[in-house]
């Protein structure tokens, strides 16, 4: 036989261990995904309302002069905020993201692009690629908290309002279903009005004041929603990837057990042959 029984047995043990690990990771990802999934849906619904309200207001703009609405004449300096994961083993979650970002960078070739990296994978990738990283946020591990969103938001606002940056673009993974997500790039700042019909409307106290109050709510919830969407996609990808790995390990295990049994049988047959032939010889 090519492999000894002992080798096969140790291989089976190894595969079993790997299967246990991937299965555990699948369960953890599932649990995290379940808790975040609901938050995504609620947050998305809330954001949609805020967005609708904001665009209604912006359609009525008079002489609105707010820092976050300020369009710059030249759009040369872009901050790209890329949200990826801290750890690997989540299928194509990170590589899809970097693929889309590369496309974007190629499109905007002439402009200066700097990166705000969320997640270790993003940080490492852009470091290797020699793109300037302005700021990085690491070690979130797909756990959302208000603090994280505030930190990221404050940095982005600071760059846009006080700095020399002309626009801020977010790259995140839009969560559709557990097995379907899509990378999206969206401009965050400057906030631009959408083309839409202007309806007659009353305002209390006035457009300027309401817009001033609404914009912080909008940007905060925007960041919150995209973080939640990305984290949910990350957990979902990991869940699927680990599920598949567990399944593969199970298949491998079955083959190995079959092989082990065959080898064992062959050994027994051999031994019987040996015994019977020796007995024959001794007679």
């Amino acid at each position: 036989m090519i492999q000894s029984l002992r080798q096969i047995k140790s291989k089976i043990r190894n595969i079993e261990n790997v299967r246990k690990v991937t299965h555990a990771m699948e369960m953890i990802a599932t649990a995290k995904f379940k808790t975040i999934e609901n938050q995504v849906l609620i947050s998305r619904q809330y954001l949609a309302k805020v967005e609708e309200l904001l665009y209604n207001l912006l359609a009525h703009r008079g002489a609105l002069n707010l820092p976050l609405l300020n369009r710059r004449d030249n759009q040369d300096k872009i901050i790209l905020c890329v949200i990826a994961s801290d750890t690997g083993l989540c299928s194509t979650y990170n590589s899809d993201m970097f693929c889309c970002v590369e496309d974007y960078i190629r499109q905007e070739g002439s402009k200066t692009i700097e990166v705000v990296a969320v997640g270790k994978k993003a940080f490492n990738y852009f470091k290797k690629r020699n793109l300037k990283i302005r700021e990085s946020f690491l070690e979130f591990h797909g756990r959302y908290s208000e603090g994280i969103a505030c930190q990221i938001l404050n940095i982005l606002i600071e760059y846009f309002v006080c700095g020399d940056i002309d626009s801020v673009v977010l790259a995140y993974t839009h969560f559709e279903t557990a097995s379907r997500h899509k990378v999206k790039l969206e401009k965050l700042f400057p906030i631009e009005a959408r083309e839409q019909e202007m309806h007659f409307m009353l305002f209390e106290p006035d457009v300027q004041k309401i817009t001033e109050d609404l914009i912080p709510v909008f940007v905060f919830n925007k960041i919150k929603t995209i973080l939640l969407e990305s984290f949910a996609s990350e957990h979902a990808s990991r869940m699927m990837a680990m599920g598949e790995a567990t399944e593969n390990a199970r298949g491998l295990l079955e083959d190995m057990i079959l092989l082990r049994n065959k080898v064992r049988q062959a050994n027994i047959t051999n031994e019987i042959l040996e015994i019977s032939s020796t007995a024959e010889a001794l007679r």
Partner: protein
Amino acid sequence: MAKEFHLTVLSPTKSLYNGKVVSLVAPAALGYLGILADHAPLIAGLKKGKIMIKESSGGDVLLETQTRGFLEVKNNNVTIILDRPSGVC
């Protein structure tokens, strides 16, 4: 029977109210504001205070908000958005 309209009250973490109502009183920026069906389109800022709702079924609901918010009236659809989660007691 009084005409009714649809009311949604949203906070960042959950939907606090969703249903048909007959009237609504909300603490707008310039003072309490009453809204009935067929109100003109309106966007208003809300202060903290009490939101009083008269439901179509005849019941009364009182929401006490601890945060600011926004109110939008559009085609007999009223949406109230509160800006913080722990807004209601």
